């Protein structure tokens, strides 16, 4: 597969279709890292293995990568990354004609310990959507769709409010407010995040149990109806806060209330940006 990836990259870099190619490479420690390839000769840096967990669509909205001005960007996307890409397209954050999508069939990514990520165990998108991709590389794999298994969330819901509060405050107590969760998220692209605004200070910048709680509520709320569950936030978190659980809870809420799943297509508006007259209102007095 890596041969085909390199060949494709070489080709589109060589004929000038793209000026930059986003892929996976290795650093001197042997860790997989995102690589930014600008020259044909550098395609040899590309790798493909079970540690290519990065969601490279994150770099489309990176203000420091001005490559779009020079020409389209080529990118490797797995099925899960593609969902984020669809949200970005529907939110007009990236133009389809400015990217070349190389879809990769993926049979799961593993963490440093060698275990599959939870998201991979319940993955329903091993095969990228051929209609969206310019090229798809890899043999199609058959996997059972298990993405609607929310039993982990239900376990938390079964607790009473005080217990839930205690559970989360234990996690948020060690939150460093490093914002890795926000910064790695392909959909957290606001020009100025509210946590960095000081007037009014919506969220207090110092890390305390309470301040962190509000930061995480706001983060999760802002991703409601948009998050595709790629789980990069949870992976990036240095102190192991199960952020994906929060996001998945909202994925389920949006699915149940609005019959919407983010990342299904690149056209439908986010559910909080539209409405139906017959939305449920049993919670309203």
């Amino acid at each position, binding site marked *: 597969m890596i041969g085909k990836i390199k060949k494709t990259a070489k080709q589109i870099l060589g004929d000038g279709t793209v000026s930059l190619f986003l892929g996976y490479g290795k650093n001197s420690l042997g860790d997989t890292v995102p690589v930014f390839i600008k020259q044909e000769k550098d395609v040899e840096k590309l790798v493909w293995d079970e540690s290519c967990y990065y969601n490279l669509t994150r770099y489309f909205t990176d203000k420091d990568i001005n490559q779009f001005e020079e020409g389209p960007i080529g990118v490797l996307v797995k099925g899960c990354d593609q969902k984020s890409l669809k949200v970005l397209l529907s939110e007009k954050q990236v133009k389809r004609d400015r990217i070349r999508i190389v879809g990769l069939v993926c049979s799961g990514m593993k963490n440093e310990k060698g275990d599959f990520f939870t998201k991979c165990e319940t993955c329903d998108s091993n095969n990228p959507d051929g209609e969206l991709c310019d090229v798809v590389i890899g043999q199609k794999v058959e996997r059972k769709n298990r993405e609607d298994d929310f039993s982990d969330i239900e376990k938390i*819901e079964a607790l009473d409010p005080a217990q839930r509060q205690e559970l989360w405050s234990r996690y948020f107590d060690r939150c460093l407010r490093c914002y890795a969760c926000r910064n790695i998220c392909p959909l957290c692209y606001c020009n100025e995040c509210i946590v960095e605004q000081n007037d009014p200070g919506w969220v207090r910048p110092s890390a305390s149990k309470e301040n962190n709680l509000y930061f995480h*509520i706001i983060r999760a709320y802002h991703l*409601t109806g948009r998050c595709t569950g790629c789980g990069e936030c949870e992976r990036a978190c240095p102190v192991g806060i199960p952020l994906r659980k929060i996001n998945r809870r909202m994925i389920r*809420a949006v699915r149940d*209330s609005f019959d919407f799943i983010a990342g299904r297509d690149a056209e439908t508006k986010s559910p909080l940006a539209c409405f139906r007259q017959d939305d449920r209102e049993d919670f*309203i007095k």
Partner: protein
Amino acid sequence: MEKRLKIVGFLCNWCSYAGADLAGVSRFQYPADIRVIRVPCSGRVNPLLVLKCFQEGADGVLVSGCHPGDCHYQEGNYYTRRRMMMLKNLLDFFGIDKRRFHISWVSASEGKKWADIVIKVVEDVGAALEEITKQ
């Protein structure tokens, strides 16, 4: 004297605010634990405002707007409905008691309904807080 609660009410100018006014004029009795902020539309109530209230120590928050179909701006309250539904959902998951956050539709003519809602909200918030202090 019993300790007063601090409940922030975001009231739509076109309906609930007038409803609350009517409640006053009609001398309907309701607790004074609510502090009213007049907003041009319930759609103006950014969920951040609700969170900020909680963060600054509010015991409860009430967002009140027009009945569906009655929005002065045609559709503001429909957005509110979706937003607040999700916010309520999320707060609940983090263990912030559901009873501390309320949404209501009160029209300009529903002075009595306003008074009843405030009574109910104060009761709910009070009960939620009591549980918290117990623990």
